[in-house]
């Protein structure tokens, strides 16, 4: 770890974090409030047609149960976009992007090993994702209590949901770091993990909406975070272990590759 680099990274990402936090606060407030205000009406409407009922299963979330509305807050594309920005863009810009711009060369001309630089940025990334998901979780809990439904919420399970979401996005971030340390340009470092996440999300979304394609869900990493199940019954250790194993594999690759690769002059 390098203190000055960590402080610099925090300062450089402060504005981005504030904006994303604001979006997540909005998401965290909206879902429980919508459930409290319109949950019954939405349930009646969705049950009126088999097609709409199918849509109600999207990503394991819905608006006619508290657990479903919280699950929806964690799996909504808007949440994915906001947290995904940090999970993909931060690693891509922090290494491949800085290399592309030439600023990585100036940083690495200091007595700072590549491994130490990587670990510092990785720790910052862990903190960023943890913070964003904590903001979402705390807002959800606060909004749930505000609409008078706090007694229905198991706080321990919300903490487990935070952990599951953190493991999922850290896995994506680790992949993004592994690509970033191998790349000299920001575009592929952003593009490859973004496409990977998108394909996983599509497989998961299609699988949840179309019964004949339900098998697709098993091939999606999003299926390893089942928010509604976690809110009601807690985190499945196997899912957490699979995410952890993926993260460790990406991390090991990045830690092996980055110090050993050549860094020719930026073009």
């Amino acid at each position, binding site marked *: 770890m*390098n203190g*000055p*680099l960590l402080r*610099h990274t925090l300062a*450089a990402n402060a504005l981005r974090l504030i904006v994303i936090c604001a979006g997540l606060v909005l998401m965290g407030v909206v879902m429980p409030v919508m459930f409290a205000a319109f949950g019954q009406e939405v349930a009646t409407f969705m049950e009126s047609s088999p097609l709409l009922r199918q849509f109600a299963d999207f990503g394991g979330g819905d608006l006619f149960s508290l657990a479903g509305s919280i699950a929806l807050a964690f799996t909504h594309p808007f949440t994915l976009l906001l947290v995904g920005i940090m999970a993909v863009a931060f690693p891509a810009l922090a290494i491949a992007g800085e290399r592309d*711009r*030439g*600023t990585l*060369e*100036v*940083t*690495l*001309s*200091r*007595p*700072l*090993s590549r491994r130490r630089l990587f670990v510092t940025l990785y720790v910052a990334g862990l903190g960023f994702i943890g913070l964003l998901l904590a903001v979402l979780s705390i807002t959800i809990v606060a909004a749930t209590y505000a609409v008078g439904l706090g007694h229905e919420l198991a706080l321990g399970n919300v903490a487990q949901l935070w952990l599951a979401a953190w493991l999922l996005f850290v896995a994506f971030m680790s992949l993004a770091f592994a690509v970033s340390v191998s790349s000299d340009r920001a575009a592929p470092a952003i593009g490859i993990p973004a496409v990977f996440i998108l394909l996983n999300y599509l497989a998961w979304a299609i699988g949840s909406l179309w019964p004949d394609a339900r098998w697709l869900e098993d091939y999606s990493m999003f299926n390893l975070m089942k928010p509604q199940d976690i809110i009601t019954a807690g985190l499945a250790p196997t899912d957490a272990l699979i995410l952890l194993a993926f993260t460790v594999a990406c991390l090991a690759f990045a830690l092996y590759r980055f110090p*050993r690769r*050549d*860094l*020719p*002059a*930026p073009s």
Partner: protein
Amino acid sequence: MAAIVTEALTKTYPGHGRPWQRGGEIRALHDLTIEVREAEIFGFLGPNGAGKSTTIRLLLGFLHPTSGRAAVLGLDSATRSVDIRRHTGYLPGGIAFYDSMTGDEQLRYLSSLDDRPAPLRAELIERLDLSERDLRRQIRDYSRGMRQKIGIIQAFQHDPELAILDEPTEGLDPLMQRSFYDILDDRKRAGRTIFLSSHILSEVERVCDRVAIVRRGELVALNDVGELLRRHRRRVEIRFTGVAPDLARAPGISDLALREGVLTCQLEGDPSALVEALQGSRIHDLLIEPARLEEAFMEYYAEESPT
């Protein structure tokens, strides 16, 4: 102890193209053996693609040698690059900074990564004519020359034992170039070593003690600048009346040409033989053009130029 030693340093890259289309390897540097002495200003010359940047990046541990070795300040560049960078200042060619930082913030940030104080910062800021107001502006508002000044300061502010500079005067006006040369002279007097890669031959001639010339990844010359110039042929023009002086047998004289009272020739080495040969002739004017590193440099490259 030498500041830099390379022994048969070689770097090759895989050929370009798709994996199934790859051709032979690209040889960026081949068998480079040089020694840079402590407290000297060493010039490293060559055209684009000659291997200058590759050498610098090998010295700093950004690249790993294919074969051979390099030692900087007695430390192996492949295994001790972090320690090397602790004692080295580096100015990359076309240096990039964080545009949203001010000049002052950038210098302080880089200094904090250096893990050692910056005793020369204030003096360098003054000598390179940067005002407090300049330093409070964001780097995105800086001109090319001002960015280069920040680059020079960040390379020297912690008083490194060795400074590695890639095209250091790029973007500096002539006045600032002079200030920069004075800074180099001062660092040399303080016992510091400068390794300078440049395209500007007059600059190398002005500041360097010794110079290495690389061509297509290979060392083609390594010598004192003075010696290189002494060896190089200079143009001589003699205006006379009466009988033309007989220079045919004078040592070091070649390419004699006579036209309407003007004798021209090439002189290599000591001019005293020429002066002696001119004794007794009626000379109006004698012009011996000073030797220029540029011509010596071009001579090395002319051998390889396509015809």
